[in-house]
């Protein structure tokens, strides 16, 4: 089939026009949030239909940063970073250790535990909400960061699964060569496999960072003092209609809360895309 050149150009233009239009629809709410945060606070809604601010200002960021109940957003930001980094490190490294066991070793009960692991991926957190709260309450963990961090040091189903998929793609000849060289199982894992699964670790790390950063329910349940709040819960309190009506500041802090996720996304989006594709497809 031979198509004329003009025809091909038109098809191309239409294709990109459709794709770009979709981009605008998809990104408009985000752009609106970002640009509104630079509008004068009383202009946010009177000029809601205009995307760009008439008068650019940083006042919203200065006012918003002060936070509430004499706790600034700097504190919330630091709290979020603390919880997110620790939980992510725990989830990434515990998951890969567990995944190696499932992917490479033969032992009694491995199939059963693997099935249990798959089950945890489908088990909704909300069903465990009450009894977990009671457990942490009994341990004296409520009001501390422990419930937001400790459970992640025992592996997370999605990441274990991702790592298992990845490790199974590594040729077994490498294992045999290492064994012949006198490597123990742990030596094999640490020296041979671990360096090779770095891409899977990056994918898990990026997902974990964004999920932990955005997590709302767990901080809502377990954090009860304002100075210990993470970004998500602080932003919720800050934006409650009864609490205040400084819309500009609200948009500014919302924008700010997304900055870490944006940066991580921009840097690692290739890993995210591949992570979703592999773990999703082979399920």
């Amino acid at each position: 089939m031979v198509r004329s050149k003009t025809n091909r150009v038109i098809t191309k233009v239409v294709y990109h026009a459709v794709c770009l239009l979709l981009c605008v629809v998809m990104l408009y709410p985000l752009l609106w949030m970002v640009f509104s945060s630079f509008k004068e606070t009383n202009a946010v809604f009177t000029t809601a239909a205009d995307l760009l601010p008439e008068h650019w200002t940083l006042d919203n960021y200065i006012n918003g940063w002060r936070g509430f109940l004499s706790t600034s957003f700097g504190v919330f930001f630091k709290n979020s970073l603390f919880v997110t980094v620790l939980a992510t490190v725990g989830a990434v490294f515990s998951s890969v250790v567990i995944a190696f066991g499932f992917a490479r070793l033969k032992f009694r009960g491995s199939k059963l535990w693997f099935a249990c692991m798959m089950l945890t991926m489908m088990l909704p957190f909300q069903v465990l909400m009450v009894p977990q709260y009671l457990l942490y309450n009994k341990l004296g963990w409520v009001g501390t960061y422990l419930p937001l961090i400790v459970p992640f040091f025992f592996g997370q189903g999605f990441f274990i699964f991702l790592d298992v998929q990845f490790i199974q793609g590594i040729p077994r000849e490498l294992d045999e060569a290492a064994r012949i060289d006198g490597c123990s199982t742990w030596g094999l894992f640490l020296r041979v496999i671990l360096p090779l699964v770095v891409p899977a670790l990056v994918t898990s790390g990026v997902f974990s960072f964004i999920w932990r950063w955005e997590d709302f329910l767990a901080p809502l349940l377990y954090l009860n003092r304002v100075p210990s709040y993470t970004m998500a819960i602080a932003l919720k309190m800050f934006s409650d209609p009864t609490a205040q009506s400084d819309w500009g500041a609200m948009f500014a802090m919302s924008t700010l809360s997304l900055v870490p996720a944006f940066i991580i996304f921009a840097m690692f989006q290739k890993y995210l895309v591949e992570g979703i594709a592999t773990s999703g497809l082979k399920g």
Partner: protein
Amino acid sequence: MRKTNGRPQYSMRQNLEGYSFIGLFVIGFLAFTVIPIGTSLVLSFTKYDILSPPQFVGLDNFVQMFTGDHQFWVSFGVTLFYVIVSVPLRLAFALAVAMLLQKTTKLTTFYRAAYYLPTIIGSSIAISVVWRQMFSADGLLNSIINKIFHTQINISWIGGEKTAIWTLIILAIWQYGSSMLIFLSGLKQIPKELYEAADIDGASKVRSFFRITLPMLTPVVFFNVIMQLIQGFMTFTQSYVITQGMPMDKTLFITVYVYRNSFTYYKMGYGCAIAWFLLIFMAVITALLFKSSRSWVFYQAEGGD
């Protein structure tokens, strides 16, 4: 439980080594999943307000739930409606956009990132805050409508009994990104020869979509449906933050209802009972889907697990 019917016997050393790796998972699974689930089941037969010890009440919670609690049925109905409407729409969008992105151009990476971004940040509080303002009386939607059509609309979409749930459904559809990526890699695995053969036979594009693309994608569709259903039933933040269940409980998702009973009214036993009902309901739905999959999911003879 020693099985000798042809199964391999593992040495003590193999077992010790195996558990030195997966031991963390076993401990975590028992402590943070099995024990809480068991506790939850026991508590669902009790009255428990955390201050005084649990009181055994038999099936009272379940009887109350099914016969005496109008709000429970409202929230169950709302959740069901939300899932039944948003999951197919989201998947349809995901598939349509995935097909659009199948063609590789210089801008493909950019498009893919732009379409996926809302999904990755969609459940954050920031987006909930923005969503509330977009659909409020003087929010983005009305402002744009008024500007284009020179009207004076000031309906609160968030506050309307009929419209509130739709603002949440739109939010759900907006986040089609993960399903899109999964569809996209599924599409790439369909052998090109199939399309070429269809082309030679003179099949139209529409026909090859229904005869080749869709059947070849059914395993991916199946996986997506299950994951999205679970995610849909578990939606919490959106209902809790954006609409707070209002107006008139028209957006009161069942997860928020569990939360309220357990942590606002301190009816923890009752909260557990509802959570268990939800768990069983979802397990049944998933089982039915798996059962039905034999008749509509197409697995290639080669290259399966």
